[in-house]
């Protein structure tokens, strides 16, 4: 395990040489091929508590543990042709930045707060899970140079945090992508190896199939029972809220797609991942539980049916594998956990730099006028931020230790912070009429209605329960997602469809002498109502959401300025062509051209233009001013050595491209090696 961790740390740190600026640090320079991103997503998607959690569900309920890996396709059209091109072409570097462009700075501020809370909490949960997974495999104490060090959960977490923090801090997104790529392969291999050895252990495939009861073989859970694992609740929590959250709100995953060389490569990475890699991952993470059930049916004395589900992964792996293989499988498990955490740290640093650091620098006018100096300062700040976020993640572990299970801690965060953001993004992208008043009230009003639902589940959530029995200890743990989504969507619809009434009221306020005091009263009332509800002051609490939902749109309309035409151009699905034109800076050239092979020569200038021959330009169907992607010919590099640039004036030397020293350094091109050129747009 120690060798594994050190190898991964050195491997990740090596890729620090590919990080020259913040674009490289966060987006890997927007250069990679779809296959490289697909494999690197495996470790991120499978990561965190998947092995433990899905093996447990596989042991308790069978193949239906795979449900959450096979229900992400429904929102793919929205993602591939809506959200993905918008975030790439609008050149936003974080989800909150989209909120400022599409709505206003207040929406960005609220989105930043919600996302940072969510992601730092998520990192904390990741560290907690890592610690819990590693602790059973460690001795009670280490003896180093005569000093005895007791092993504790928090000490293990700190050591893991230091290792993870080091390679992210120095390597950035390229390091994350390449370590995740390596860990993705290890993960898939280890999962299938365990499955194959386990099937041989129980007597072959037919014996394994025959040992499982019918209900364990069914791929979907029972419709509405038990309350701890039912189909309909998981459908709304995972297939709807989870899938939209995964594709639209997961900054780490989005940054991975944004690291692809173009939008179409991002689409390919998403499609291959969801269609083929996720079903394979479902087997990888769940098979230990299925094997555990088969072994317990075959020999209850080897695995008792009463075995704790959370321990089944380790129990099965230790029974069916030899000690060396067991160590390898455990290393793969830890790899999965680490991959989720590294992605989250890098993504959270991206949000902090983009949505806190830059606005603050702008406010205090401390931004450098020279772009290279600014980028250097930002890269340094990004590295410091990664360290600080890693530390904040470790500290947040203290808040989660009190939850009875990691799953509950994770569920608490997911169900509370996901629906308002998911609904806000979705309505913002697909509905032009959705305004700042709508989005801010969806954030604040959605949160207060969710709090009310959590306090009175039998009154508010039961109408949505589909016959699921309420467990008083954890009421409606899954189906509450449907209630949360409905209230957030409901608030957004209500505010948007009543905007003419709000405008009429604000016009009246502006035309009357008492306007300012009236608005002060409204603002104070809404603020007090919001905080009373959040801090649990229960007197008249059912009225607080009404005050928030009625007053917040008025406050936003009165104090804010919003031009719908300007705010939606290129930022909704209705204007993707405008987004593309804005990305290029002129009308995109959609003619289909060839990819060509060229040798490069150096020019002594610092213009960001590359020069091809007239004939090569014609073969690529390109014109001066179009965007071009140049990469090393070796496909297995996956775009690691590549650049984006612009076509300059052509020359007559066929098969040659002139680039400058910056291009060569940034693309890490090797002298004498051929390049492949293709028109981007």
């Amino acid at each position, binding site marked *: 395990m120690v060798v594994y961790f050190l190898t991964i740390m050195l491997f990740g740190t090596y890729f620090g040489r590919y990080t020259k600026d913040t674009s490289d640090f966060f987006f890997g320079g927007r250069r990679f091929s779809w296959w490289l991103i697909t494999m690197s997503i495996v470790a991120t998607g499978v990561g965190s508590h998947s092995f433990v959690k899905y093996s447990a569900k596989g042991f308790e309920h069978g193949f239906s543990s795979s449900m959450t890996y*096979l229900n992400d396709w*429904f929102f*793919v*059209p929205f993602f591939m*042709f809506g959200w993905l091109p918008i975030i790439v072409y609008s050149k936003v570097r974080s989800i909150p930045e989209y909120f400022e462009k599409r709505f206003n700075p207040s929406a960005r501020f609220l989105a930043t707060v919600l996302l940072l809370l969510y992601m730092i909490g998520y990192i904390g949960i990741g560290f907690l899970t890592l610690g819990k997974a590693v602790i059973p495999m460690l001795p009670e104490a280490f003896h180093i140079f005569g000093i005895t060090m007791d092993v504790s959960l928090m000490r293990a977490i700190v050591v893991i945090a230091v290792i993870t923090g080091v390679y992210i801090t120095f390597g950035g997104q390229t390091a994350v992508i390449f370590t995740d790529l390596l860990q993705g392969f290890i993960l898939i291999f280890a999962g299938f190896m365990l499955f194959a050895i386990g099937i041989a252990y129980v007597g072959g495939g037919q014996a394994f199939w025959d040992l499982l009861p*019918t*209900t364990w*073989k069914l*791929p*979907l859970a029972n419709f509405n029972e038990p309350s701890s694992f039912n189909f309909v609740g998981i459908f709304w929590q995972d297939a709807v809220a989870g899938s939209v959250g995964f594709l639209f709100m997961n900054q780490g995953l989005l940054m991975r797609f944004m690291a692809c060389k173009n939008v179409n490569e991002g689409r390919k990475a998403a499609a291959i991942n969801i269609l083929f890699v996720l079903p394979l991952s479902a087997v990888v993470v769940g098979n230990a539980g299925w094997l555990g059930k088969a072994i317990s049916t075959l020999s209850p004395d080897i695995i008792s049916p009463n075995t704790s589900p959370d321990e089944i992964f380790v129990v099965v792996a230790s029974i069916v594998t030899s000690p060396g293989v067991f160590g390898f499988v455990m290393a793969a498990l830890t790899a999965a956990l680490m991959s989720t955490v590294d992605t989250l740290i890098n993504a959270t640093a991206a949000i902090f730099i983009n949505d806190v650091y830059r606005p603050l620098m702008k406010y205090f006018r401390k931004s450098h006028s020279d772009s290279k100096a600014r980028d250097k300062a930002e890269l340094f700040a990004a590295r410091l931020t990664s360290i600080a976020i890693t530390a904040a993640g470790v500290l947040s572990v203290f808040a989660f230790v009190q939850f009875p299970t990691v799953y509950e801690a994770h569920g608490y965060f997911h169900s509370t912070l996901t629906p308002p953001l998911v609904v806000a993004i979705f309505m913002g992208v697909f509905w032009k009429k959705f305004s700042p008043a709508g989005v801010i009230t969806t954030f604040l009003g959605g949160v207060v209605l969710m709090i009310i639902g959590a306090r009175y589940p039998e009154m508010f959530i039961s109408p949505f329960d589909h016959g699921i029995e309420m467990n008083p200890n954890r009421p409606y743990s899954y189906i509450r997602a449907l209630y949360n989504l409905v209230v957030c969507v409901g608030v957004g619809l209500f505010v948007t469809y009543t905007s003419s009434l709000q405008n009429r009221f604000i016009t009246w306020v502006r035309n009357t002498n008492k306007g300012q005091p009236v608005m002060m009263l409204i603002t104070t009332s809404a603020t007090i109502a919001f905080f009373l509800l959040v801090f649990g002051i229960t007197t008249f609490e059912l009225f607080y959401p009404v005050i928030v939902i009625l007053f917040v749109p008025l406050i936003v309309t009165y104090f804010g300025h919003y031009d719908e035409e300007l705010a939606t151009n290129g930022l909704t699905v209705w204007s993707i062509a405008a987004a593309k034109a804005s990305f290029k800076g002129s009308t995109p050239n959609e003619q289909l051209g060839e990819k060509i092979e060229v040798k490069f020569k150096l020019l002594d200038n610092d213009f960001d233009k590359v020069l091809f021959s007239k004939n090569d330009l014609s073969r690529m169907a390109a014109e001066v001013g179009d965007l071009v992607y140049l990469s090393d010919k070796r496909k297995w590099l996956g775009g690691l050595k590549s650049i984006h640039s612009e076509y300059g004036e052509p020359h007559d030397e066929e098969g040659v491209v002139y680039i400058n020293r910056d291009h060569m350094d940034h693309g890490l091109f090797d002298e004498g090696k051929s390049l492949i050129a293709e028109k981007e747009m």
Partner: protein
Amino acid sequence: MEYFSHSWLPYIYLYGIGGIFFFSGVYIVWRTGAIDLKKPHHRMWMKIFFFGYAWFMAIHGLLTIFALR
């Protein structure tokens, strides 16, 4: 039918309600012009969308049939 609430009822719900989201998405990206069926690679993506929907229906359907046999 034995196991109905554990097999075909969730299946119908998944691809019924999920299908509403899926086909709404296909319609919206087509209606807004985000996917342009005059372009060959966009036509390919449209085919992949429907293939994906059928692919997951087939996986769940076949597993259910085999489990109930």
